[in-house]
């Protein structure tokens, strides 16, 4: 099964009006992911007794892409593209947004996994990573993250930080801006992870320490968040 190589720069292929573009992104550090999470504007307000939510990660995502891009191919310019001042910001907005979407294209996997071992929690993710040598983007399926079962104290920390927010405006008509539990999830991932499958570092399979040191920050948050999400019960309609 092909694995995600965590140390290599990622190449995001974009097809725009029949033309191919390739944008290369350096390995994204946990600090860069943290800045992205901090820039997410997730708000809720009460409108006539109903909760109305809004979510906007656009500006944070663009800032992340612009800070991580190291090369771009397929564009015409008078001089080498990377020698142009602030060349990242001169790329089409739709291309930068497309790269941002690819970097954050991580979801709970629908692929069938192994039976669960008691005392161990296993999360499977699907994710887009990088274009292959033919310039084709593929989705990696069933990326496995195995964890210890969280303790009551860890559950408590998650619940506390997921419920924290600031109020913009009045208590009744003001907006709740959620602070987000991502930094807690990053810490919990490192505390709880046991092993991962589907990732390599310089071609080597990762052990626990390797996963803590090298796992992509967005994958850490996505996997740890699934740990605390209730599983959907298998419900059928009554005939």
């Amino acid at each position: 099964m092909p694995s995600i190589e965590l140390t290599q720069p990622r190449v995001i292929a974009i097809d725009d009006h029949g033309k191919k573009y390739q944008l290369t992104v350096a390995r994204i550090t946990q600090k860069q992911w943290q800045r992205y999470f901090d820039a997410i504007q997730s708000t809720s307000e009460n409108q006539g007794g109903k909760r109305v939510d809004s979510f906007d990660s656009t500006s944070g995502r663009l800032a992340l892409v612009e800070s991580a891009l190291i090369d771009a191919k397929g564009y015409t310019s008078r001089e080498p593209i990377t020698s142009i001042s602030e060349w990242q910001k001169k790329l089409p907005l739709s291309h930068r947004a497309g790269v941002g979407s690819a970097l954050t294209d991580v979801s709970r996997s629908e692929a069938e996994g192994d039976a669960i071992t008691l005392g161990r929690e296993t999360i499977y993710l699907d994710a887009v990573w990088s274009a292959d040598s033919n310039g084709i983007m593929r989705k990696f399926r069933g990326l496995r993250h195995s964890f210890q079962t969280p303790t009551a104290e860890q559950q408590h920390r998650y619940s506390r930080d997921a419920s924290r927010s600031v109020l913009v405006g009045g208590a009744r008509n003001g907006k709740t801006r959620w602070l987000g539990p991502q930094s807690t999830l990053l810490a919990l991932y490192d505390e709880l992870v046991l092993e991962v499958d589907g990732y390599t570092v310089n071609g080597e399979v990762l052990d626990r320490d390797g996963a803590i040191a090298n796992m992509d920050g967005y994958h850490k948050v996505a996997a740890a968040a699934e740990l605390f999400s209730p599983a959907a019960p298998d419900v059928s309609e009554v005939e």
Partner: protein
Amino acid sequence: MIEIVRDAEGVRMALEEIFEEDFVRARVERESAGANAETKERMQRQIPKRTLSPGYYAFAEHLRSLDDERRAGIIFRVGDLAAFEARGLVALDRARSEFEHRHPACSGCGVRQENRFGRECSGCGVKFVRGKAK
């Protein structure tokens, strides 16, 4: 801009609303069992609307889960709770006392009453005897 967890009075109000909401929802579900969908929907409208920004209810629900553990006998050490959680649990106790004062429980069956002035229990139908003020 304030951090919601530090607005103890707002958190207490959210808790009171949640207690009332749960109380009315339980009654509506009891009374609408077996009713058709239209009647159920009409009765659901009796559930009071929330009035505060949603962050208050999220923190209130977190406090309720801590409180469930506390009532189950789990003992928290001082360092286990943030100061705002400890203050929130105090607000929760106040909100619960006020709710229980508004909706006293029947000494026979334990069902909480709509108000303090009913003549008989809405659960078991037992007649309430009122003591005369001296």
